[in-house]
C-alpha cells in the first residue's frame, strides 16, 4: 500500500474512552456495524478521570486535529465519582483553550454508555464533521512534528 499524498484533509482524531462505558459503547457500535470515519482512533483508559489535561495538549502538540473524551454518564461511573472530576477538569481546560483563541469544537466531552452504540457512532460522525469544518489544527501544533 502506498501512502499517497493527496490534498484531501484527513484529520487526526484521538478519542479517549473509559473502559466500562464508552469503550464498550464503541464495541457495540462496531458489532452493530454503525460506521464512522477511520480518522478516529480510540485509546482505552480505565476511567475518564484518568485523562490528564496533559494528554490532550500532548495530542495537539503532536498534530492531532481534534480530541474527544468519552466516559460513563454522570452518576453511572464505574468508580462512582471519576467522571465528575473529569467533568470539572475538562470544563476548565476547554475554557482555557477557548480563552487562548483555540477554535471551539476541537475538544469535546461526551457521555456514552455501554448501550449507546448509536450515540457513539453519531457522536463520532458529528465530531469528525466539525473538525473538517475547522480544518487543520495550526494554532496548537508543534511544527517540528509535522510529517
Amino acid at each position, binding site marked *: 500500500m502506498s501512502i499517497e499524498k493527496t490534498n484531501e484533509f484527513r484529520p487526526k482524531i484521538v478519542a479517549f474512552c473509559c473502559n466500562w462505558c464508552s469503550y464498550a459503547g464503541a464495541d457495540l457500535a462496531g458489532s452493530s456495524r454503525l460506521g464512522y470515519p477511520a480518522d478516529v482512533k480510540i485509546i482505552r483508559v480505565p476511567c475518564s478521570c484518568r485523562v490528564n489535561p496533559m494528554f490532550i495538549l500532548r495530542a495537539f502538540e503532536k498534530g492531532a486535529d481534534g480530541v474527544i473524551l468519552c466516559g460513563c454518564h454522570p452518576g453511572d461511573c464505574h468508580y462512582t465519582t471519576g467522571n465528575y472530576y473529569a467533568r470539572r477538569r475538562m470544563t476548565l*481546560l476547554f475554557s482555557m483553550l*477557548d480563552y*487562548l483563541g483555540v477554535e471551539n469544537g476541537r475538544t469535546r466531552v461526551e457521555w456514552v454508555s455501554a448501550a449507546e452504540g448509536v450515540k457513539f457512532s453519531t457522536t463520532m460522525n458529528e465530531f469528525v464533521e466539525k473538525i473538517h469544518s475547522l480544518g487543520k489544527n495550526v494554532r496548537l501544533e508543534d511544527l517540528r512534528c509535522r510529517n
Partner: protein
Amino acid sequence: MQELVTRAKELLADGTVVRVLGWKRGDLSYNPEPAYFNSQEELEQFVYDGFCGANLSKYMIEGSKKEGKTLVFLKPCDTYSFNQLIKEHRVDRDKAYIIGVGCRGKLDVEKIKAQGIKGIQNISGAGIEEDTDTLNIRTIYGDKTCTYGSAMLERCHVCKGKEHMIFDEEIGESKDTKDADRFAEIEKIEAMSPEEKFAFFQKELSKCIRCNACRNVCPACSCRKCVFDSNQFDSAQKANVDSFEEKMFHIIRAFHVAGRCTDCGECSRVCPQGIPLHLFNRKFIKDINELYGEYQAGADTESKGPLTSFTFEDAEPGIVVERR
C-alpha cells in the same frame, strides 16, 4: 517598621523563635530581598516598605524543616498562601510564629520607570508608616515625583482585602488599595474574537524565555520536583521552539495550581519579561467562581478545593461554547 524590628528582637531574646524570616535591604533602595536573620545584630539590615512585595510564605517550606520556630512576617495576601500550604501539609504551623504586617499596597519599580522616570538613585515615601501619597524620586536627572498609586503592582489594585487569614499577632495599619475590578482584564480578553485572543497570547507568550521564575516564586507551585522536570510527560525543561510549547507550559503551569492559586500575583511580579501571567491563573479562578461557586484558595485550611470536589449538577464542558 521599627516596631517590627523591636518585636522580632524580643521574640529572639525570649527564645520564642530562633530565627526571623523577613526582608533585608537590597543594593538599591527599591530592591529589598527575602532573608533569614539569625541574631539581633543581623536584624539591623531588616527592612519593610512598599517594595517588600515578596511573599515569604513559600520560604516557610524550608523554614519548617529547620530546628525551632521561625518568625515570619506575612502581608495580608501572603497569609492566603500560607493557609494553602498548611492545607497541603507543606509547612508546619507549629514551626511558624506569624506576625501579620500592615500593607498599603506594594510598589513596582517598573511602573515608575514606565512613567519616564529613568536613572533612579533613591526613592523615598515608600515607608509603611509614611502617610504620603507621593513618592519622591532622586534620579541622576534631578528629583521627580509620582503618586504612590501609579507605582503600585497590578495585584494591589484588585486587592483581596487587608485582613490576615492567619497570624499570631498583627502589627501595623493597612490601607485599602482596591480600586479596580479583579476580572475586568479577563473579561476584556474573553470578549475578543478567537483570532484576536490567539494573537494577544502569542505576542505575550513569545516573550517567555522559560527562566522558570514564575514557577520558582509561586507558593502553590511548590512540588519537590515539578512535572516539567519529570521524564514522564516528555515536558522536561527545554527551550521554546515554537508557540505551542510556550502555551503548553503556561496552560499546564496554571492548570496545576488551579483551585490552589490564591491569586497572590507573584508570578507576574517576578517575570523578567513582564508577561501578565496572572491572566492565566485568574481565568481559572473566574471560571471556578462562575461555575462552581465563589472559592478563595487559602481562606481556610480545611475546605476541599474546587478540583477535588464536585456536585452532581455541575455544568457540562459544553458550557464553554454555550455561554459565549
